[in-house]
């Protein structure tokens, strides 16, 4: 369980995150949705310790931690692939750094690439593949971290509807199968509703939780389901209300 208390961050006096409290259960799917520029990525950066917080307390599984640095796998919004490594070598990086033998990690990446539709592109350079493929490679790299907590910042934003749906299913599987805690940012309400156990609708900066939806419909969910459509309408209405500019 990840407990966040009173998280606060200002840039040049401008509060971006202020007095933010959140509890994320171990083994659950928490989705954040909110207007562009509200502070979601900053929030993740704060959790990871990439950006120093002004205030706030974190604890993971009961223990106070300064940041999640070594505890979580984090997929940032930009892909950050190293241009001089092939997709395969890029995805293997976390394993390489952890000292996993290259053969072993290559095999794992190969399996992942099949799942993510990157089969046959293992030896391409990042500059030689499409935006969506780069994003999938970055996702593969994130999944190569052997960590229980996964933060995903708009991981599927550049993918077409069909691929997206397949990867959503895969993420779901991952979370339930391997009992990971996933914290994910998305702009796609449907995606959020398909995956989330907990859906947080956020306000514009300074970011606050304006509404929290606990979704206990069984997964996989059906987007044509009535209760699904109903809650979707509610979430959209909430978002609309929040959008002020």
């Amino acid at each position, binding site marked *: 369980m990840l407990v966040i208390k009173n998280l606060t961050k200002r840039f040049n006096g401008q509060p971006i995150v202020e007095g933010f409290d959140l509890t994320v259960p171990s083994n659950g799917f928490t989705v954040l949705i909110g207007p562009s520029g509200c502070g979601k990525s900053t929030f993740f950066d704060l959790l990871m310790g990439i950006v120093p917080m002004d205030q706030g307390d974190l604890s993971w599984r009961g223990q106070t931690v300064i940041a999640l*640095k070594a505890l979580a796998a984090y997929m*940032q919004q930009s892909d950050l692939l190293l*241009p*001089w490594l092939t997709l395969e070598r890029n995805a293997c990086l976390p394993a390489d*750094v*952890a000292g996993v033998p290259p053969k072993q990690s290559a095999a794992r990446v190969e399996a992942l690439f099949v799942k993510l539709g990157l089969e046959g592109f293992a030896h391409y350079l990042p*500059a*030689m593949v499409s935006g969506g493929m780069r994003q999938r490679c970055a996702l593969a790299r994130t999944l190569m971290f052997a960590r229980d907590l996964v933060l995903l910042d708009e991981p599927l934003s550049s993918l077409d509807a069909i691929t997206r749906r397949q990867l959503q299913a895969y993420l779901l599987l991952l979370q339930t199968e391997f009992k990971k805690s996933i914290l994910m940012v998305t702009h796609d309400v449907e995606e959020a509703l398909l995956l989330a156990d907990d859906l947080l609708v956020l306000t514009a900066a300074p970011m606050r939780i304006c509404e929290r939806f606990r979704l206990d419909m069984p997964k996989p969910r059906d987007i044509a389901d009535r209760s699904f459509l109903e809650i979707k309408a509610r979430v959209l209405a909430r978002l609309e209300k929040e959008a002020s500019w």
Partner: protein
Amino acid sequence: MKRSFLFPLALFLVVLTAWEAFCRLGGIPDFILPPPTRILRVALGDAAILLPHAGITLVEILAGIALALTVAIPLAVGMHAQPAVERALAPFLIASQAVPVFALAPLLVVWLGYGLASKVLMAGVIIFFPITVSLLEGFKSCDRNYRILFQLMGASKLQALRKLYWPWALPYFFAGLKVGVSVATIGAVIGEWVGAQQGLGYVMIQANARLKVDLVFAAILWLSLMGVGLWALVGIIEKRWLWWKDASDSE
């Protein structure tokens, strides 16, 4: 391919012709600036004498480059890893570039004697500097987001160096190395001030003292050829090591 060398060749010939004309018509005496034809004649005519000396200088240059790399890379790494180290060493490194040979030569003789070592050291002092500075600047230019990525992976400093900083700084390294190999020629020549009995630098000082200016310039010609050769070699290595740039840019 062929056409792309037309212009360089043309310019080369124009420059040489202008120089020749300048010497012959402009009344510049041979012992001040010999015309290129004469330099060429001496460079080729005395090749049998010059080449063994050139060989020795080349060995010094290569050893100097090797020494410079051995020093420059750890130095840049250390200075990047610890800003305090940078602040501490920078003044010494800069000072090392302000010391003229004649001040250093007796010391080198006392320490290293008259062998190859003193020449190589002298050349190394001149070559290592641009490499260190460029490499350090390259390390520093590494994008923060990537640095963070490696932190989050829990990469050790060594891992980050090998997998991130080094490839990132490679273009800088090559910029420094190109400067390095170009000044390596004069580095070795200066090294040969220090009690040499052979080498192109030795030939030059001696020829100069005897007013054989054409021989001086013939030696310079040979040195320049070495410099250009080394430069081209570095260019080839660069193209190989940075293959991913070409591959990424292709279309």
